[in-house]
């Protein structure tokens, strides 16, 4: 058991997977000599050699395309897109082929690849280095979409994603890479994709979040507790498939729900969560479901970034409105 940052925990997951299975390899821009811009692939080149820790040119489409070919022919590529804002250059390969290979071949082939990428704001970066566009991937049938919220689940989810037979988009909340440390068990910790976790129990209100937004959401729950409101906090972990059973069970119990995400508001991931809750828990709801989200603009540069990102105060205000409705 070691206390690791999320970057270290992800690095451990990659090392373990590559130790365990020769078919696992990493490729991407600066993943070899540099160890990745966030140091997630550090040391892999020394340990596994250039054939399995592969520096690529700046060519996102080819990185994902080559990964699909490798995956279809028995390898387990884990490709890194340096920032999620660069992934649209690879969208054709991801959406048009990785996501469709199993369907198109009636299950005979699959693209068992993982596309890792840092996403989200909070590191005072430029717009393409700060965004949260989960829905582009979640909307695509055939892709799985995962977003860890800390070192321990990051390690377990990445191991699960690499083992998964289907393409998994693995979103790493970049503000959490070194934000805090957690005990990460030495032994492999099985974790299934598509399962959310209850991070705090409560019967008055359900707060739903994931990724970097889980931290302000948990803090908001603590503040509400001081006021005598016990909020349940659910960490989605997987956005696709979405574990709506746990969400609906909680919503039926509390009748009041607030969803917190960095992504833009309109057609954002929260809209799908609300739709599922309306389908599964409508008659138990005591108040309209609220969303605390980023705005329908691009993520502003650092001086205005805090205006854009949901924070504890906005979450608490929204919770009050839902409680009073």
């Amino acid at each position, binding site marked *: 058991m070691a206390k690791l940052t999320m970057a270290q925990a992800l690095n451990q997951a990659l090392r373990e997977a590559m130790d365990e299975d020769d078919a696992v*390899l990493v490729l991407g821009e600066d993943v070899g000599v540099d160890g990745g811009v966030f140091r997630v692939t550090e040391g892999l080149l020394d340990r596994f050699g250039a*054939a399995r820790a592969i520096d*690529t*040119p700046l*060519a996102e*489409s*080819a990185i*994902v*395309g*080559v*990964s*699909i*070919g*490798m*995956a*279809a*022919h*028995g*390898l387990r*590529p884990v490709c890194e897109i340096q920032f999620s804002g660069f992934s649209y250059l690879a969208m*054709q*390969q991801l959406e*048009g*082929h990785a996501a469709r290979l199993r*369907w*198109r*071949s*009636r299950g*005979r*082939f699959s693209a068992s690849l993982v596309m890792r990428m840092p996403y989200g704001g909070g590191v005072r970066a430029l717009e393409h280095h700060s965004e949260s566009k989960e829905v582009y991937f979640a909307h695509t049938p055939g892709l799985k979409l995962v977003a860890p919220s800390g070192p321990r689940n990051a390690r377990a989810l990445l191991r699960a994603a690499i083992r998964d037979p289907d393409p998994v988009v693995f979103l790493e909340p970049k503000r959490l890479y070194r934000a805090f440390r957690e005990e990460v068990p030495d032994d492999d910790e099985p974790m299934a994709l598509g399962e959310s976790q209850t991070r705090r129990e409560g019967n008055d209100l359900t707060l739903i979040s994931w990724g970097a937004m889980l931290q302000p959401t948990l803090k908001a729950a603590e503040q509400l507790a001081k006021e005598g409101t016990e909020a349940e906090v659910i960490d989605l972990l997987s956005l696709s498939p979405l574990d709506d059973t746990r969400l609906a069970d909680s919503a039926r119990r509390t009748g009041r729900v607030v969803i917190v995400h960095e992504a833009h508001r309109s057609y954002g991931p929260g809209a799908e969560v609300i739709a599922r809750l309306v389908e599964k828990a409508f008659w138990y709801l005591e108040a309209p479901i609220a969303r605390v989200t980023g705005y329908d603009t691009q993520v502003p540069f650092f001086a205005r970034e805090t205006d854009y990102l949901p924070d504890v105060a906005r979450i608490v205000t929204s919770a009050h409105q839902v409680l009073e409705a």
Partner: protein
Amino acid sequence: MILIRYVEQSLLRLYAQGLMGGTVHTCIGQEGCAVGVVSAIDRQRDMLFSNHRGHGHYLAYCGDIHGLIAEIMGLPIGVCGGMGGSQHIQRENFYTNGIQGAGVPIAVGMGLAERFKGTGAVSLAFLGDGTFGEGAVYEAMNLAALWSAPTLFVVEHNGYAQSTPSSLQHAGDLSRRAEPFGIPVTRTEGADVIAVFEVANRLLGQIRAGKGPRLLFLDTHRFAPHSKGDDFRDREELERINRECDPIQRLAAQIGADTYEQVRKAAEIEVDIVLQELGVQ
């Protein structure tokens, strides 16, 4: 080649009769490219990534007329359960898709995977001259050359992307586009199936020997429209290429009229039997 042409002509007829959905891009006139190249591969291990004009490649690969026609008719007995259609056919190591250039990086990745496993397999990516407009092609060629991927790029240069001639789309000489990457290019006439086979065989041997990717540039002609009713080419020019550049007529001259007639009849019967089985003859 004769069999491919009968199938393609049958598909156009069935489409006109409303028995098929989607779209049908035939390779009539380009059969020499498909048969010449695919006859040179090792079917047990090599991989083909075809494109939107892939029926000829598929038939040359496995001869599965029944599965192909049923697939394009959307029938559950089609090779992909009737879900893929003309442009999304996958069987064993044969893949297609309709997105221009998209299969090229995937084919490179397949080749790299097989090299990693040490199987000696080669991957082939088929592209047309129009495909050179797509950036993915250059990304893939760069990687293939840089990592010495066992990949054969096969360009079927028919001079048109749908209705737009190559001269209105591409600056410079297309046949030299791969050279700056250090990929050797061999140019051959696609209508001469035996020449295509011999060149493909030689290039595959070089790739299997670890010499890195190669590009085979085939000059060819599409006799039929891109899809169906979208042919704006000069009538006289079409007649000329039909007369002078038909790979089947070329082969007929080489094998003699009697042999040609035997092969032609056999192909016709084979296709007709399938059409009868499918209830469309």
